[in-house]
């Protein structure tokens, strides 16, 4: 009976919040959906061009616990696309600034900062408590590590990446679906692929893709719509073309 009382308290608390009123009136969400969000735990790897919009969107929606991993400091060259940061934040740890801004935006949720890069060594400890991992990194080797952690923990990995005016989006390892390795088998020449620092990017693109990652996270937590599993979504911001490529699961990757 005690759990029922606790549930009742939480429902009353959410019902009293004006903040989420406009999304709670969606039949797909409702009070119970909002409760699911409040109880969900999501880990975001990278607080850069993709990580900022993922964090902002999930925090605003009321994601209960968000872990954010990044060892970087804010630089002036980040400001055109990483809207969590301001000029006087330059030189400060990204996760520290992100936590302050988000705490101000939504004090109802819990943000856990990890001011470190995600490595093979710290990955098991950092990731153990989360139900979804969001890949917002800017290196291919980090994506393989995140994939392997997601597979080991049996949790989905919400992936996006950008190249100039193009973006890729997918959800890997969702309900035993294809993984990142099914799409891109590992190869030693991969690290030559350019990132935003050396190939350039317009700020809106990672913000579009990051918002789409947050959308996939919300669909997974709330269990509605169609999660982008087994498909690679490709978007081109120059001509607004988009297409979806089917990915088969390679059983060797599990």
């Amino acid at each position, binding site marked *: 009976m005690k759990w029922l009382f606790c549930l009742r308290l939480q429902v009353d608390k959410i019902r009293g919040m004006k903040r989420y009123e406009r999304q709670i009136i969606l039949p797909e969400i409702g009070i119970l959906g909002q409760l699911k969000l409040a109880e969900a735990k999501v880990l975001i790897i*990278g607080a*850069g*061009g*993709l*990580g900022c919009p993922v964090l902002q969107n999930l925090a605003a929606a009321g994601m209960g616990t968000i872990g954010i991993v990044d060892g970087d400091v804010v630089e002036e060259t980040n400001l055109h696309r990483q809207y969590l940061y301001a000029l006087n934040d330059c030189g400060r740890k990204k996760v520290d600034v992100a936590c302050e801004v988000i705490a101000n935006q939504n004090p109802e949720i819990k943000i856990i900062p990890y001011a470190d890069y995600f490595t093979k060594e710290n990955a098991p400890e950092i990731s153990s408590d989360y139900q979804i991992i969001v*890949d*917002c*990194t*800017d*290196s*291919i080797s980090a*994506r393989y590590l995140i994939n392997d952690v997601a597979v080991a923990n049996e949790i989905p990995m919400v992936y*996006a*990446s*950008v*190249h*100039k005016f*193009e*973006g*890729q989006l997918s959800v890997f390892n969702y309900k035993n679906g294809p993984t990142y390795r*099914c*799409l*891109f088998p590992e*190869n030693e*020449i*991969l690290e*030559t*692929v*350019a*990132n*935003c620092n050396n*190939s350039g*990017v317009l700020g809106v693109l*990672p913000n579009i893709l990051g918002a789409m990652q947050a959308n996939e996270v919300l669909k997974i937590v709330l269990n509605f719509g169609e999660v982008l599993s087994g498909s*690679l979504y*490709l978007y081109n911001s120059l001509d607004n073309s988009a*297409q*979806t*490529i*089917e*990915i*088969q699961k390679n059983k060797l990757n599990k």
Partner: protein
Amino acid sequence: MEITVKYFGIIADITQKKEELFFVENDSNTLKTLQSEIEIKYPKILDINYSVAINKKIANRETELKDRDEVAFLPPFAGG
């Protein structure tokens, strides 16, 4: 056979185009043959690890091509 090839990401940077048409002999119709032809035309592609889709489905190098197939060269993106 007429095959439309679409290029993405860094591969489109190398080819300097988003798509082009290839004419493949009917008796050498695996994806491998077409890939080799494209890699000879644009040797820098050999430095890229990429996946290939045929008609919007990830395919392997032994997959047979049919007339008017659409082939996509998909490299991973790194930016975030």
